[in-house]
C-alpha cells in the first residue's frame, strides 16, 4: 500500500480528543477504514481534505499539546490497523506512482513486505550504488527492507540477491505437520530460474466523441484497484475452469436441523461456513492450490497456512475479507467469525488486516441467481472457487429419479501451477466433503 484516499475528516482543528478516537476515514486500495488517533491531545492543524489522495508517510494531522507537551504529527502509516502509541511513520520509497498505475510492477503483491524490515538506515537515502539499486528493481526487492552487509551498512548486490531468495523460499522452508499431501508437486531439478515476462500495452482508444456525446467518470479508488488487479490477473495468468456439482441435500438437512441449536449458542449456520471448511480441508491435500507463483525466482510458494478470502459485493464494489486458519477452526467458531466479519463489512468497518493475507478465494454468487459463473483468480493467489445457487434437481440415484439439492461449483485455477487432472481431483475432493458432511462436523 502506498497511498489512500481521504473519505471523511471526523475531527476539527481545535478539538481535544482522546487516544484511539476516530480521526479520519480513508479508503485504501483494500478497504474503507477509520484511522484512530495515535495519541490524546488538541488538534492544531488538519493537513488533508476529503477526496484527497495521500501517500504513506504524509502528515495528516498535527497535535498542539500532546501528553508529552510537544507538538507531534499523525502520519499515514502503511498499516492503518497498527495502533502503536508513537506513530513510526512508514517511509515511502520515493514518490509513489501517480500515473500509469496499471503498469505491471514486478513481484510486488499487496500485503506485508516479503522481507523482514531492518530498522537500521531507515532515514536518508538508501545506502547502495546505482547499479545495486537497478538490480533491486530488476528482482523486485524493496531496498529499504534489506539490511546492508557492506561497510557503514552499505547494501551490496549479494544482500539484494539474498533478500530475493529469502522472500521466495520463506513460505516453503518451514516443514509442516498438517495433513499429508496426496499431490505434492514434483521437486524442482536444479536451481530456480526466473520465468520470461510479458508486457502488454493497451492500444489508444478511438475518439468516441465522433459518434456521439460521451461522459468521463473518474474511477473510485476501489474500482481502480479492482480493475488493475483483474486486468493483471486475466493478462498474466492462463486461467482454466473446471465445472462440478455437489449434492448438498444431506448438508442442507444438517444445517436446517441444527439451526436452532446453533442460534442458542449465538451462531448462525450458513452454507458458506461449510464451504470454507470443505475447501480448507481439500486445500490441505492439494497444496498447489494454496500457493503463489514466483515467476522471477522460477519457484512455487506453497503456503503452510490457510486463510480463505470470501468475495463480498458491497455498494462501493467488490471486497474480499479473509478468515484465518480455516482448517484448524471448529465449525461453530468459523460460523461465529464469519458472522462478525459480515457485520464489519456491512458497517464499512473492515480493517486492513481483515483484507490481507488470503491464500485462496471463494465467491458465492448464489444469492443473485445464475447457474454458473467463471471467476477470475484473485492475484497473487492461484485458484478461486465459484459457487452458484443450489437448486432441487431430478437426479438418478440407484436407478430411481430423486429430487436432490445440487450446488454448482466452478474451480478456476492457474494452469501454470496445476493441470486439468489436478483441478479435477481437487474439485472432486471438495464435492465429496460437501456430500459427506459428517466429515466437516467431526470436530464440533
Amino acid at each position: 500500500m502506498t497511498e489512500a484516499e481521504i473519505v471523511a475528516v471526523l475531527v476539527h482543528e481545535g478539538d481535544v480528543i482522546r487516544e484511539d478516537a476516530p480521526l479520519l476515514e480513508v479508503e485504501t486500495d483494500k478497504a474503507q477504514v477509520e484511522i484512530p488517533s495515535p495519541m490524546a491531545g488538541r488538534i492544531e492543524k488538519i493537513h488533508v481534505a476529503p477526496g484527497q489522495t495521500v501517500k504513506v508517510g504524509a502528515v495528516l494531522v498535527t497535535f498542539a499539546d500532546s501528553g508529552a507537551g510537544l507538538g507531534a504529527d499523525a502520519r499515514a502509516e502503511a498499516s492503518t490497523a497498527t495502533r502503536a502509541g508513537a506513530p513510526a511513520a512508514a517511509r515511502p520509497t520515493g514518490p509513489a506512482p501517480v500515473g500509469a498505475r496499471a503498469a505491471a510492477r514486478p513481484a510486488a503483491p499487496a500485503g506485508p513486505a516479503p522481507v523482514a524490515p531492518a530498522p537500521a538506515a531507515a532515514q536518508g537515502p538508501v545506502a547502495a550504488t546505482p547499479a545495486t539499486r537497478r538490480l533491486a528493481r530488476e528482482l523486485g526487492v524493496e531496498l529499504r527492507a534489506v539490511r546492508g552487509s557492506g561497510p557503514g551498512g552499505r547494501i551490496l548486490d549479494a544482500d539484494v540477491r539474498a533478500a530475493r531468495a529469502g522472500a521466495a523460499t520463506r513460505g516453503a522452508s518451514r516443514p509442516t505437520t498438517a495433513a499429508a499431501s496426496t499431490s505434492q508437486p514434483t521437486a524442482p531439478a536444479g536451481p530456480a530460474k526466473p520465468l520470461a515476462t510479458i508486457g502488454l500495452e493497451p492500444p489508444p482508444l478511438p475518439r468516441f466523441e465522433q459518434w456521439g456525446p460521451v461522459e468521463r467518470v473518474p474511477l473510485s479508488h476501489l474500482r481502480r484497484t479492482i480493475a488493475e488487479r483483474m486486468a493483471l490477473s486475466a493478462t498474466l495468468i492462463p486461467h482454466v475452469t473446471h465445472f462440478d456439482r455437489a449434492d448438498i441435500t444431506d448438508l442442507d438437512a444438517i444445517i436446517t436441523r441444527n439451526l436452532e441449536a446453533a442460534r442458542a449458542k449465538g451462531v448462525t449456520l450458513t452454507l458458506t461456513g461449510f464451504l470454507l471448511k470443505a475447501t480448507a480441508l481439500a486445500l490441505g491435500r492439494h497444496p498447489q492450490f494454496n500457493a503463489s507463483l514466483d515467476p522471477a525466482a522460477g519457484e512455487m510458494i506453497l503456503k503452510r497456512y490457510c486463510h480463505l478470502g470470501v468475495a463480498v459485493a458491497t455498494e462501493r464494489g467488490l471486497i474480499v475479507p479473509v478468515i484465518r486458519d480455516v482448517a484448524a477452526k471448529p465449525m461453530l467458531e468459523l460460523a461465529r467469525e464469519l458472522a462478525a466479519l459480515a457485520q464489519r463489512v456491512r458497517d464499512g468497518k473492515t480493517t486492513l488486516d481483515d483484507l490481507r493475507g488470503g491464500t485462496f478465494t471463494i465467491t458465492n454468487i448464489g444469492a443473485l441467481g445464475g447457474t454458473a459463473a467463471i471467476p477470475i483468480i484473485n492475484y497473487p493467489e492461484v485458484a478461486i472457487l465459484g459457487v452458484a445457487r443450489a437448486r432441487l434437481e431430478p437426479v438418478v440415484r440407484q436407478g430411481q429419479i430423486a429430487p436432490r439439492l445440487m450446488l454448482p461449483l466452478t474451480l478456476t485455477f492457474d494452469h501454470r501451477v496445476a493441470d486439468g487432472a489436478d483441478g479435477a481431483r481437487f474439485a472432486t475432493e471438495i464435492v465429496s466433503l460437501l456430500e459427506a458432511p459428517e466429515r466437516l462436523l467431526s470436530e464440533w
Partner: protein
Amino acid sequence: MVMGELVDEVDVAVLGGGPGGYAAAFRCAELGLEAVVVDADGRLGGACLFEGCIPSKALLHVAAVLGEAERAKEFGVDFGEPRISLDPLRKWKQERVVGKLARGLASVAKGKGVEVIGGRGVFEDSSTLRVEHEDAVRKVRFKHAVIATGSRPAGLPGLTLASDRVMDSTAALALPDVPERLLVIGGGYIGLELGTVYATLGSHVTLVEMTAGLLPGVDRDLVQPLQRRVEKLFAALHLQTRVTGLREVEASIEADLEGAGSQRFDRVLVAVGRRAESAGLGLEHTRVRLTERGGFVRVDDRCRTDDPHIFAVGDVTGEPMLAHRASRQGRVAAEILAGRPSAFDNVAIPAVVFTDPEIAWCGLSEAQAKAQGTAVKIAKFQWAASGRAATLGRSDGLTKLLADEATGRLLGVGIVGPGAGELIAEATLAVETAALAEDVATTIHAHPTLSETLMESAEQLLR
C-alpha cells in the same frame, strides 16, 4: 490536388529539444524505439545550449581570463588595459561555441535516426500532437510522448516595462553592448553569473536582492567568500531590497530601490528565476496534471505523468531546474518506455554556480540535515591550508563535508573556490555510491591539486 494533413506515426514523440528532450530521444533510439523530437525552434540544444548554460559559460570564461590578467599584476605581469571588441566576441560565442555544439547534436540525431520536427507542438489528445509551423500543420500520432518543454525566464510581478533596456537572461546573453550602468535584479545564480560577466567587461553593476543574502537556500559558509568578492567587483550590492518601480527616462531606466532611492541605469537585467513551460501545450486534452504550486507537470520517480501515455522530464517537472537533471530524467523515461527497470532515484544532483569563485554542492546541506533531524558530522577545510590554492593565489576557498554520524557515510558536499564545479564531480560520485568518509580519505589524490581538499576534509571526519 488538395494537401491532406500529414500524419506521422511514431513510438515516442518528444516535445522539446533541450537536454532532457534530446537525451530521451537518443536513448529511445538506442533501445530500438522510433522517436521524433518536436521543437519550437526546430533544433536540438534548447535553452541550455542557445540561451543558458553554454553561452553564459563562454562569456564567464572570457570574464575569468580578464580576471586572471588583472590578478597577474600581483605576480609582476602587466598585460596593460584590455581592449574588448564585442563583434569578434559575439561571433566566437555564437559560432565557435554554440554553433559548433548545435551542429554536433544535429549530426548525432541524424546518426541515430531521430527526426527533429520544427514547430509548436500542442496535444490534441493522449496520442496525438498537432505541430504548427508557420502555415503548415502536421500531426504526430504517438504511443508515448515525453514532455520536455523546459522553462523560461520569469518576469517581475507588477513591474513589466516594454523596453529594450530591460533584459531577461536570454537578451543579456546576446551581449547587445556593455552598458555603463547595469542594474541586476535578483541575487540568484543567473544574476550573479551575468552580473560577473558585465562587471568584468566594464559595466558598473548594481545588484538588488530581495532576501537577506545572495544565493538564497545555499549554505552560508559557501556564499560568504563569493559575497566578499562580489562586493569588490560590483559597484553596489543591495540586500533585503525591493525594486518598486521601473520607468524609461531619457534613454535610461530609472529604478526605485526601496531604501536606496531612485537611480538611473543604462540597462536592467531581470533575473528573478524561471517558470515551468507548461501552459499552451494542450495538456487539458490529456490526463496530465500540474502541481498547484509552480504549475509543474506532476511526475513520479519513473517520470510518468498522470496520463499513462505521457511522460515528462526536466525543468517542466520541477526543481532543481538543471540541464543534467533533465538529461538523466530523459534517459530514465526512455528506459522505462523500453521496458527496462529504470528509475530517477538519484541521491545527489550537483549544482554549480559559475561565479568567481565558483560554488558547487550536492546531496544534503547542513541546513537540511538540521531541519530533518539527521545527525551528521561536519568537516570544513579552509583552502588557506592547500598548497595548490596558494600556487593559484587563491586561498579563499572552502571544502565542506557532511557525513552520517553513525556510519560515516558521506551525505553531502559543498565547495567554494576556483574549479569547484569540476571538483564536485568526485563528491557526487562519492555521495551517489554511498561512499564512507574513510573511502575518500584513503583514496590517493594527486598532489598538488585542489582535489586534495576533499581527502583532507574526509580525514578530519575520521578523527
